[in-house]
């Protein structure tokens, strides 16, 4: 029987950039080049309709996607209702609806 110490060791949270697969990032940047322009201001998250009802941070999803941290992002992106308010407020002119649609598509293809 395993002895319980009252705590367990969790998986490391360190992002190892040497093992990240940036293939899907490069694919997305080819389809929707405006993705590159993001400067992480968070205006999209602030105005997001979905974010008012559920825990959803589109800016962070974008950041995680850029860093190759793709696990669970498809579930996150399912919360988006594609209302397009983020596109309206983005100061760098990112075309977010097609970006989100393409992210979803890329995340479900192998």
């Amino acid at each position, binding site marked *: 029987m395993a002895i319980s110490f009252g705590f367990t060791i969790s998986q490391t949270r360190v*992002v190892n950039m040497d093992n990240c697969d940036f293939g899907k990032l490069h694919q997305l940047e080819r389809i929707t080049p405006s993705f590159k322009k993001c*400067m*992480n201001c968070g205006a999209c998250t602030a105005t997001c309709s979905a974010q008012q009802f559920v825990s959803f941070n589109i800016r962070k999803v974008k950041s995680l996607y850029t860093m190759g941290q793709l696990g669970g992002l498809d579930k996150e992106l399912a919360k988006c209702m594609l209302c397009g308010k983020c596109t309206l407020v983005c100061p760098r002119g990112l075309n977010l609806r097609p970006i989100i649609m393409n992210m979803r598509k890329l995340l479900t293809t192998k």
Partner: protein
Amino acid sequence: MKKIAIIGAGPAGIEAASILAAHNFEVTLFEKSSTPLSNILDKAFLFPSSVAAADLVDELNAKLLHDNIQLICEKEIVNIKETNDECKLFDKDGKTYFASKVLITTGYTIFDAHRKEELGYGIYKGVISSLDLEKMIRHKQIKNSIDELPQRITFLQCVGSRDEKSGNNYCSKICCVTAVKQAIEARKLLPQAEIYIFYMDLRMWGQTFEELYRQSQEEYDIRYIRGRISEASATFDGKVQIKSEDTLIGQPLKMTTDLLVLMCGMEPSPGTKTLAENCQIAGDYHFIQTIDPHLHDNETAQTGIYVAGSAKRPMSIRDTLSDAAAAAMQIMSDCQ
């Protein structure tokens, strides 16, 4: 003809000298090293327009060719004393010179990255300073520590700036855009490499700087990660492993990079420090203090002693040139 002494033949010294000479002042320009403009000569291209540094050097050197300007190289002025409306300058060997007014344009020196030991400058070959990279760009050849083309280049902002541990709480102001410029130049030489810039804030304060930053993302695929690299170590194959946090996703991060480029800040040059102390006009961090940052920004507490350029605070070349013109104007109106 009034005699003006200018200490330091950098962009500020030369610009002020040429304006004063054109207005019939007799200018003596003292330079500590053997040639003028050594700080610009270290550079390959200048932000934001990517003009070749050598071109600006040529234009500034041409301004020195005026009958009213006398350039004295290898002469270090260490003290100035003002008596009876005249300034007496003392060089290192105790020799003296006289002038009605003195303009100090002794400038800056780059932060010595050895002082940030945890980043491994001078210990690991893959860790280089922004000045070292500028030299590689000048020679159009960027290589890693084992003489191969780098696959990954990582820039780190704010080395020796905004850092209490270095004793410098101030922002050096020019490093942000310098990294953007260097990243773009590196991209031109290395189309395949991954290029990252680690930053705490990106301060794109000047005209067209923000546009250059945007262009670097859009056209040159430069990637920006918000976080400060806290330590670097070597890998067995001559690369550098760095640790940071990506503060935008809130997770620690590590990666191996061929080159870690430390964006070193600006500090007062040894000459600036010496004059600031000896003339009792030292301000914060041993830069030279002006009387007032708005209306009297070229005058010091000592009558007859003026200052321009990065001897008073970190400044870009463009700002330095306009500051020098302002100082020349102030000297002229005070001589009336």
